[in-house]
């Protein structure tokens, strides 16, 4: 377990997904702050410096997640960002965070495909927290 309680910022327009992840993250010992839109996410960032952010790619505005991702990295490049998306299953567009071509504009540290299981998300959060703290 973490020595100090880490804060996870969850941004997703699917309230049930937020609830489910929040409950499980809290049970796993994290502090969780949630936002249901890109705008709410930005609002949240004024008062909060999360240790890690989990952002849905497609919200109200199709690319809301990308924009928010940029804002977070601009605010503090040391905040790891996990992008969650159903874009592949919904549009058939495939992309890969690791490819060089995408990495120049893709600001997230990891990409998870929805429906992402909690264990998967938790593993990514733990990995990135370790990576960023070393």
């Amino acid at each position, binding site marked *: 377990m973490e020595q100090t309680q880490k804060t996870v910022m969850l941004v997703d327009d699917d*309230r*049930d997904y937020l609830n*489910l992840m929040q409950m499980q993250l809290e049970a796993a010992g994290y502090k969780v702050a949630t936002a*249901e839109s890109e705008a709410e996410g930005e609002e949240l960032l004024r008062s909060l410096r999360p240790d890690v952010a989990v952002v849905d790619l497609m919200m109200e505005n199709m690319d809301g997640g990308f924009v928010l991702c940029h804002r977070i990295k601009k605010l503090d490049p040391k905040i790891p960002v996990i992008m969650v998306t159903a874009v592949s299953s919904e549009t058939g567009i495939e992309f890969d965070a690791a490819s060089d071509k995408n990495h120049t504009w893709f600001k997230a540290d990891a990409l998870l495909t929805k429906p992402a299981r909690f264990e998967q998300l938790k593993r990514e959060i733990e990995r990135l927290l370790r990576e960023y703290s070393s």
Partner: protein
Amino acid sequence: MIHLTILVVDDELGMRMAVCRALERFVVALPDVDGPVTFTIRQAGSGEEALEALAATPADILLLDHKLPGISGLDVLAQVAEKNLDCLVVMITAYASLETAITATKRGAFDFLAKPFTPAELKAAVSKSAKHLILQRHARQLAEEKRQVRFQTISVVAHELKAPLGAIEGYLYLLRDRPAGNEWSAYEKAIERSLIRLQGMRKLITDLLDLTRIESGRKKREIQEVDVIDVAQAAIDGVTPDAKQRNIAIALHAPDKLTMTADRGEIEIVFNNLLTNAVKYNRPDGKVDVTLAADDGRINIQVADTGIGMTPEECAKLFNDFVRIKNKKTKDVLGSGLGLSILKKIAQLYGGDVTVASQADVGSTFTVVLDRAAAAPAQTASVSA
């Protein structure tokens, strides 16, 4: 106008010429088909030549002699079937034996013409084939369109049901695994949200059934004199508990008496949809004005709210199937995205329409115009969704 190509396959030149002459200016008029059906006649002197001609340019009807010098008519028929060519074959035979007939039918011949035949018999056979072919193609096209629409609808419905199912499933796993301990209160939100998502699914299914019934025209409509004020009042009563909770006042402005010839259930759906929306999308302490009026054989139903309103772009797509206006203001409002599309279809059944005037953050006014007598018995036959 429809144009069909006939390929005459016979080794006797005289026979081919006779067929060409008979069909030269032949025109068929078919019921259910716009314009006359005309023909172009092509010829082939052998089975091999016929197959070659078909490979180069397809024909619609094949007048095929049974006895040919090289491969037989039955062989040609077998090839046509094997290659799945979209053409009807009429076998011409001087040896009209039962055996030939059975073999030809098995291989897919549509009709027979026994030699010698008169021009009238030839024309009758060609008419019959043309009719069959055109209707068959038309049916195929309709079936394809129907398949497409069905596929689209199923995809959207599946998608709309998958989301709440996923959420409920997630909550149930949570309740089973209890990561937050055994205290029930920790899971109240999970239970509450599951119930809300289930309600949404139920509403989607009910609306879908309404929509299907209206669109298919299968539902037996009970056309009668309907007291519109009574239906409006019942719909108002239905939403009053929700309205009271948020202190929304509903007022009905109507003449003393207002009736129309209609299926009461359909008019109820109209009012229920309008009023549910007017309350759902209203602000606390807001109001709803329901105004009923009649003129020139039409009924005007106007429902004005003081709610969140919409932008012109949002208004433009509002009446389509499965459209929900998604924004910060509507995120807490549940809906199937079918209510207004159902409403529009009903309005059209009554020779009317529904329109909306709206201003963001000020409110929306929906106006439904219905023809009071559109559903009267004399006209029911012509009413279809």
